[in-house]
């Protein structure tokens, strides 16, 4: 059906109006790379809506639809059921939603989808706030990060999405980071091959919302893992594998000094932050490797 | 047009009974019926009632029955639960009652019904089906009033309950029909 106006190497056009240095755009390219063209993608309004263009024009050359903010998972369930009723077991149904649409308003529909065991691949690009609408806090916003709704910094820590999915005993769930694209793509492939619901939670540095240099997107993704802010692991058929453990955690300074959203953090708060990050990292590793 | 009102307790199958009656007149006697149940927050043991209108023509009226021609009481204890079963009755109204106890009959005789048809439907149901749910057997008692034929009542009981349970309940209906007394 698509009328091709611009040449493009892949499923996603180059001229996407995402911000310069956007991690979500890179993630989307990886997703389309691995999944190929036999997909139906569901995107809620948010940053990922930039991939789809505007009006009659679209940046994705694949079958897809824009759902509402909170029902990515449930729309995917409906599409899956329809494909199943037509005997189609080859098409991958993908939900591609941000942290707000997943961890806040969309958590119920995601929970329902996982619990029912619908074969859907759900990807959460987590840029840690409602970036598309102007950097408002979400439940994925980290401790002390400043946003437009909490300029003094968020007083609580981030929600653990994969932990929630693991509590549903999801067949496959993983965290991933943009600095390790091979690992990311391997996980997307695994999720695609899962016979049941699968979830990938990717930390996405956002130059606009994190007030960082666009060039630092990958650096930040790497620093998040090395400082222990972000843990790379996967949950597969009830077994946890921690994919990468830094020999020694880097100081949190390396991660937050590159970001404007932590600019107002005092030395005292920084120490507190370091303590929380270290504690939660150690607790998490202990729990995962139990 | 005959207007009926069924009174009973939640769990006794009053709604099922109304289904049996409407099935009997609609499918086996070529007449028409409409049932309007009056239950809300479903729970066992609470008083419930159902309105049924039976007619030779398609029934238009779709609301509760306020002036019943026939009142069927599935559980005699209902009058102790703040339910006025004689509400709206007129001089020709008939009562169908699930009891054989003289003391209970005595109480009910004061309501001013023209006739009372009665039998111990619960006992008959228990004896034949093994379950003390009187909705099948009470259809037999109701049939004695002439609002529905006993043959079509039997068929309807079988239709609603399904073959196995239905046969036993139909038997109970027939037995109750034969055991029905009138005062």
């Amino acid at each position, binding site marked *: 059906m698509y009328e091709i106006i611009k040449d493009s190497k892949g499923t996603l056009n180059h001229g996407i109006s995402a911000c310069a240095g956007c991690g979500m755009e890179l993630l989307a390219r990886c997703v389309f790379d691995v999944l190929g063209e036999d997909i139906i993608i569901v995107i809620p309004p948010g940053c990922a809506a930039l991939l789809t263009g505007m009006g009659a024009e679209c940046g994705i050359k694949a*079958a897809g639809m824009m759902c509402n903010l909170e029902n990515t998972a449930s729309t995917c*369930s409906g599409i899956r059921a329809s494909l199943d009723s037509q005997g189609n077991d080859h098409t991958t149904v993908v939900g591609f939603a941000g942290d707000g649409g997943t961890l806040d308003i969309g958590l119920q529909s995601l929970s329902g989808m996982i619990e029912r065991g619908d074969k859907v691949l759900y990807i959460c690009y987590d840029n840690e706030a409602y970036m598309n609408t102007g950097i408002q806090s979400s439940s994925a916003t980290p401790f002390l990060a400043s946003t437009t709704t909490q300029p003094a910094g968020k007083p609580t820590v981030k929600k653990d999405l994969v932990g929630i999915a693991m509590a549903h005993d999801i067949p496959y769930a993983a965290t991933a980071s943009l600095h390790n694209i091979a690992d990311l793509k391997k996980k997307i492939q695994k999720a695609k091959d899962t016979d049941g619901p699968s979830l990938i939670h990717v930390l996405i540095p956002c130059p606009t919302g994190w007030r960082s240099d666009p060039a630092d997107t990958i650096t930040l993704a790497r620093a998040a893992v090395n400082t222990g802010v972000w843990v790379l692991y996967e949950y597969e058929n009830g077994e946890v594998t921690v994919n990468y453990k830094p020999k020694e955690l880097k100081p949190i300074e390396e991660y937050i000094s590159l970001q404007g959203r932590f600019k107002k953090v005092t030395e005292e708060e920084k120490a507190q932050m370091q303590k929380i990050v270290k504690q939660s990292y150690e607790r998490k590793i202990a729990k995962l490797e139990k | 047009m005959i207007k009926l009102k069924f009174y009973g307790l939640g769990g006794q199958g009053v709604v099922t009974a109304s289904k049996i009656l409407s099935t009997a007149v609609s499918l086996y006697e070529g007449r028409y019926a*409409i049932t309007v149940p009056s239950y809300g927050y479903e729970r066992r043991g609470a008083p419930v009632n159902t309105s049924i209108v039976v007619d030779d023509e398609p029934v238009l009226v779709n609301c509760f029955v306020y002036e019943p021609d026939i009142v069927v009481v599935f559980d005699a204890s209902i009058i102790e639960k703040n339910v006025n079963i004689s509400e709206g009755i007129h001089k020709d109204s008939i009562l169908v009652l699930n009891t054989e106890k003289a003391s209970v009959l005595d109480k009910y005789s004061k309501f001013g019904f023209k006739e009372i048809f009665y039998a111990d439907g619960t006992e008959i149901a228990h004896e034949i089906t093994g379950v003390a749910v009187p909705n099948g057997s009470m259809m037999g008692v109701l049939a004695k009033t002439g609002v529905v034929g006993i043959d079509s009542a039997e068929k309807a009981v079988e239709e609603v309950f399904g073959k196995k349970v239905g046969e036993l309940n139909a038997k109970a209906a027939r037995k109750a029909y034969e055991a029905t007394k009138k005062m």
Partner: protein
Amino acid sequence: MYKMLDGNTAAVEAMKLARVDVIAAYPITPQSTISEKLSEIVASGEMKAKYIRVESEHTAMSACIGASLTGSRAGTATSSNGLALMNEMIVAAAGIRAPIVMPVVNRAIATPWSLWCEHMDTMSQRDLGWMQFFTQNCQDVLDYTIAAYKIAENKDIMTPAMVCLDGFFLSHSMQKINVPAQEDVDKFLPQYELTNSYLNPQDPMFVSNVVGMNDYTEVKYQQKVAMDNAFDVIENVFGEFYAKFGRKLNIIEEYKTEDADVVLVCMGSMTGTVKYVVDKMRAKGKKVGMVKLVVFRPFPYKYIYEALKDKKVIGVFDRNSCLGGQYPPVCTEVIAALKGTDADIRDYVGGLGGRDVNPSNIEKIFNELLDIHSGKSYKHTNWIDLKENPMDSREVFKYV
């Protein structure tokens, strides 16, 4: 074949005959038996469909939209607060042009809590781009549901439809229903085929994209045109239905209006009771009549005008409180339809939260209208069957 069905099972029967492929339903009183029965017949293999046991009505409608766009005839049903929760997706389904047909069992929306019948749930969704059919009895539920699929899926319409049945008065009322044979319905209602927008990896397109201020007006206008076109399609489909099944379906039904002095316009299960009262009053020589509105959205302005243009006194019965409005919705529409005539149109509100609309109330309304017609009186009672001193209905003792 005649069967004894209640309104809910009649809706299920219609969905089964329409060969719905994907069902996503969430139980809510008084709709619950629809969800139960559907899951039961899917599990037993009596109906070949996928049943999604969703965790909310919002998800139910979302899943239906997804399934509908992927090429399945999708079905769900709801009621009251469930419909209110769906609200956002109701708009989406209409805008996306997913021709979903949904039985709605009318019930009052909390609060105050009531499990009983009222039209407020569907009335609050009336302008969101869905067609609405209101039914009088269980046969209507079955017939209009089957017809609604054909109307909704017409390529010029592509608009979802609600088939509204009154909670308990229809949903749980046992009635004798003529159920058509599957092969006859198959001939009447062909297999669902996507010709508008769809989700197909072999022939990709992106559905429900952002349009912005450039296209929004035009896309909405397309929906308006679909609604405007609907009457031709509805008439054709009703005609076909009559030819196939021998039962006449109506956009509006006029009941003894021809020589009537006063006419009452109403919808839903109460229309049966009103017909009964009309017959009774006619027997006493009182010239009363009724208009039953079946199609409420799109609103049949022309039909109402034709039916009532010569009437001097008209009552309109709304089973819905219209808080803060001049007239309740049905009455507003009737007034708009009769603009330019010199009809005296009176609004009546009643039957709220399941309060019974009984023959004596209807008779009172007709008598009031007759009084107005003969010039005996000018006043009428807006809220019928209201208890005395409603403001004191929660008078309590407090320590002061």
